């Protein structure tokens, strides 16, 4: 790991500390750390302890994991399509998760338990990924894969709108859908984190494994093939990795915009275009940025600002600034 990667890695614990000391419960960092120490020593926790242990710590860790997943997925998509504008949403996986989550909310599955909507959304992500692979075909070109993903995303978005229109008189449903689509870590705790770890861990491992092939692809399809890269297999594995990362992240927290688009560009400013350094650095940047965004969202006492809104509010102007400064060619590295 080079200096930049070390710095990015060090930013994560700093962001975690800031997050642990922030929140409407008015519990400072020292008390939060003492609480975690007591809990790890096996002590029973009071109300303030429960706020730190059951609410702040797991949601901060989940924010980090989700941010890393989305950023790594963004780096994979931009590498696969060799397009700096590609974000994890272009494959339609997050839209599939969102559609199933909305249908689940419409049918009242959320009343079955905390697990219900994440499970339904994960099924949606898997279904979208399966549909994409079936529609594009194993030997499809990147352009066909990209267009199939865009079309799938548009279809899912249209069906979400149909659900909202059909149930427009159910204001509680509308509220749930709006909050879910805005993305949030509100109420996420240890179970959510434990559900996120296996798919995100597998997806991140796949992303790290595919770095060398993506570097070869950066030279062009013909060059990559001449270097022994099986392009069809690479496409399939990238889609599976993105599906795991984005599907799990979206299923558990809703739609968090711009993390997957902007974090790889921030990382690329330091690492350059090579995926060997880009993918881990993007994941670290995404993790610390998302933890910080969630801390900012929770610091506004009295109102609930969904982190997904903040990622868009910060990410979109930042991306425009980056685009103006470096140009599209510069973004591509």
């Amino acid at each position, binding site marked *: 790991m080079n200096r930049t990667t070390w710095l990015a890695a060090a930013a994560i614990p700093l962001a975690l500390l800031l997050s642990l000391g922030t*929140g*409407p*419960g*008015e*519990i400072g960092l020292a008390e939060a750390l003492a609480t975690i120490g007591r809990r790890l020593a096996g002590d029973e*926790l*009071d*109300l*303030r*302890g*429960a*706020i730190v242990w*059951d*609410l*702040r710590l*797991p949601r901060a860790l989940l924010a980090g994991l989700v941010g890393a997943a989305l950023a790594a997925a963004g780096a994979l998509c931009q590498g696969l399509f060799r397009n700096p504008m590609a974000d994890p949403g272009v494959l339609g996986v997050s839209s599939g998760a969102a559609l199933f989550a909305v249908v689940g909310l419409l049918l*009242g599955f959320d*009343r079955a*338990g*905390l697990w219900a909507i994440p499970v339904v959304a994960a099924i949606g992500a898997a279904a979208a990924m399966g549909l994409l692979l079936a529609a594009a075909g194993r030997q499809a070109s990147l352009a066909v894969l990209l267009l199939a993903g865009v079309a799938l995303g548009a279809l899912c978005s249209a069906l979400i709108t149909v659900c909202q229109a059909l149930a427009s*008189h159910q204001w*509680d449903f509308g*509220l*749930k859908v709006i*909050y879910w689509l805005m993305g949030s870590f*509100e*109420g*996420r*705790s*240890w179970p959510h984190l434990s559900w996120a770890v296996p798919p995100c861990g597998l997806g991140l491992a796949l992303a790290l494994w595919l770095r060398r092939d993506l570097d070869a692809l950066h030279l062009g399809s013909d060059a990559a093939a001449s270097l022994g890269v099986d392009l069809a297999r690479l496409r399939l594995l990238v889609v599976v990795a993105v599906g795991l990362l984005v599907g799990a992240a979206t299923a558990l927290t809703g739609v968090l915009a711009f993390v997957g688009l902007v974090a790889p560009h921030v990382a690329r400013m330091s690492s350059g275009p090579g995926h060997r350094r880009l993918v881990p650095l993007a994941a670290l940047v995404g993790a610390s940025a998302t933890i910080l965004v969630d801390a900012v969202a*929770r610091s506004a*006492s*009295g*109102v*609930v600002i969904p982190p997904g809104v903040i990622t868009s509010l910060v990410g979109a102007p930042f991306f425009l600034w980056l685009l103006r400064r470096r140009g599209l060619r510069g973004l591509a590295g």
Partner: protein
Amino acid sequence: MPAHDPPPSSLAPGAPEPGENGSKCRARGRRLPAVLRGLPVLFALSACTGAPAPAPETGDAPAHRIVSQTILSDEVLWALGPAAQARVVGVSALADDPRYSGVAGVWPPATPRRALTSEGLLALAPDLAVIASFTSPEVRELLTSHGVRLLEFTRFTGFADYRSHVRQLAAAVEDPAAGERLIADLDGRLARLAARRPAIRLAAVSWGDGHAAAAGTSFDDVAEAAGLSNMAKEKGLEGHVPVALELMVSWDPPVIVTGCPAPEPDDPACRAAEAAVAALPGVRATAAARGGRIFAVPARALASTGEGMARAAEILQDRLRAEPP
């Protein structure tokens, strides 16, 4: 409903014909695009449909064909009795939804259920439409332009507003005595609730989907009637406000009230709703969870702005009184 004649100006003999402008353009050797050539026709058509709006009636004038577009008016018009019911030509699309409505399945099937669409409402030829605050300005404009009087309920802050709404609707159906009977019934129930208030006044937070009901909400009156205090109001909040789970937990409420999608409080769906709140991170450490005081109230009572408010207060008081001393 009387048909509206097109305004004379659109058919006036002196009005320029659509072809005149086109001829001038052709004389200059240019052809207008089809869209532009069609504009005069579109203007003429819009003039035909855009009849001048007659001034809407005001006050509590009697109404003979009422279309109700709020659950509250669906409930009150039914409760006012057969004479009022006979004047209703349509009720809201939510009238039969047991999750929200206290008159689900009560209105005869022959009474149309109408969503807030202009054509659907106008087809009923109402002379009074009881509309909601979220009725679009386009629908309002269309209704008033066709002479339909609008009655809009905008304040739903508790029993005082309910009494006011009942009196307005009773006046509209020319049966104020029926309205006063409803109000007397409500006041009797509130008096019984007041007589049975628990000795210790606990603080309660009404919380669901990340929102709490604070000052100026119907829950504020419900809590007061049941013998509880509204914690969100005591924290200085107003209206239905987003309250983060961490903030709600940090208040350590002795009572948490939430809604459940069931018609009666003993329904298993209400127990499931209580368990769902108790399972949220951090909630198990609150006084409410430790004391077994997470109470689910049927949503149609808890979210009611009508008679259901008294029902919600009765349910809450029964739960409080059922506690072991």
